[in-house]
């Protein structure tokens, strides 16, 4: 309808708390379509909480957020049609096979269950399509979750530490997916502990400190190891 509604993410002073502890203390953030934004910060700085609010899994205690013009609390169902959320846990059913997990997701989304083998092939899991997820390594579960995510054809990717547990090939697949969504006019918001795997992907990097946005830098600068070291030192130590 207007310029504002065309924003992929428009968050205004989002605040969220758990019990007496404020995890987010007013985060405002705009992401335009075609942008890939990184979100860095120490453990407990509120990165994951922010993604979960945008994904409609959590309601904010204060503030408002819109995804492609849809309010995340009032029009949650419309938001869900656009958002692909990759959580820290894979959220798969251990006793179903890889293919069955994908088929379940496809049926829930009302998509035809054809071509699921191709999606598995894309994330390099074609060989284990009929194996149960219980035996999968964390990286394989991540890849399967990514394949499931792509079934949704999301216009906004919300990725919580997308590179965690992934090997080099997995990182390439992840980056290919992000590029694909970006080229289709979508956007992505990545929560990152270390920026190296996302090299060249990020248009901007924001740092959350104590539930607030502390610093903003453009992608290339933030990726240069020396420049990023002081501000992002706290974020890097995870792996």
């Amino acid at each position, binding site marked *: 309808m207007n310029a504002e509604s065309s924003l992929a993410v428009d968050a205004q002073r989002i605040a969220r708390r758990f019990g007496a502890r404020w995890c987010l203390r007013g985060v405002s953030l705009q992401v335009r379509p075609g942008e890939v934004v990184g979100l860095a910060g120490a453990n407990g700085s509120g990165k994951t909480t922010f993604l979960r609010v945008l994904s409609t899994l959590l309601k904010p205690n204060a503030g408002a957020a819109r995804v492609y013009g849809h309010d995340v609390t009032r029009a949650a*169902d419309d938001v*869900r049609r656009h958002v692909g*959320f990759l*959580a820290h846990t894979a*959220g*798969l059913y*251990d006793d*179903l096979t890889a293919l069955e997990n994908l088929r379940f997701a496809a*049926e829930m989304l009302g998509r035809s269950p054809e071509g699921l083998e191709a999606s598995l092939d894309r994330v390099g899991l074609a060989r284990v399509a009929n194996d149960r997820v219980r035996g999968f390594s964390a990286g394989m579960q991540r890849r399967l979750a990514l394949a499931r995510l792509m079934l949704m054809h999301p216009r906004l990717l919300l990725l919580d530490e997308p590179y965690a547990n992934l090997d080099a090939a997995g990182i390439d697949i992840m980056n290919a997916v992000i590029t694909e969504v970006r080229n289709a006019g979508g956007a992505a918001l990545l929560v990152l502990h270390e920026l190296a795997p996302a090299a060249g992907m990020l248009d901007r990097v924001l740092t959350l400190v104590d539930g607030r946005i502390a610093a903003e830098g453009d992608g290339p600068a933030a990726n240069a190891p020396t420049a990023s070291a002081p501000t992002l030192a706290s974020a890097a130590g995870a792996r």
Partner: protein
Amino acid sequence: MAWREDWRRVRVIAWKDITTERRSKAGFNSVAALAVTILVLFGFALGPEAQALRDAAAGAVWLAALFAGVLAFNRSFQVELESGAIEPLLLYPGSRWTILAGKLLANALFVGLMLAIVVIVGVTLFQVTIPKAWPSLLGLFALGAVGLVVLGTFYAAMSSRTRAREVLLPLLLFPMLVPVLLAAISGSKALLTGDLMHEAGAWIRLLVAYDIVFVSATLLAFEHVIEA
């Protein structure tokens, strides 16, 4: 078209729950074993006299089913919570009541199977003679199982996400199930003794009313409960 979409989601969720449960056999087997153990203990408590056992058979069978059912209901949401699968489940766009409906179907099958085992064991242990009116008895059991499953699954959706799920579910559920238990136990007892007072019909009507009321109420309220 929307109902067709919803019905497919109901089916696929039920299929998923049943498949998961079938493959992790431990769940069903241990719950069924517990139900049988409870029955045996009732046998000890009620003494070896045949008449006393026969009188108490209906009550023992239903209480065993109830206690075992509580474990099953909590498990049915436990599966979603364990690996964080509830999050993607909640993020699929579309109506949420289908999640409850799918789980109801799966749990109904689960409890139905368990009841079948418990009844067979109960008939043997408590020296019950199967009455001529066994089709009505079967219907009564089905109606009672529906009441048990509907409220059990609904309250488990809440209690399984709290700190005290083991205590909270029975605390919330048992008072709500008083009509189901009274109707199921009294109705079965009447049918087992030949329904001389013609009371079984009243109990069946009560169960039908109860099931209709709470199936619609839970489906209406589920969206609120799972949202938060």
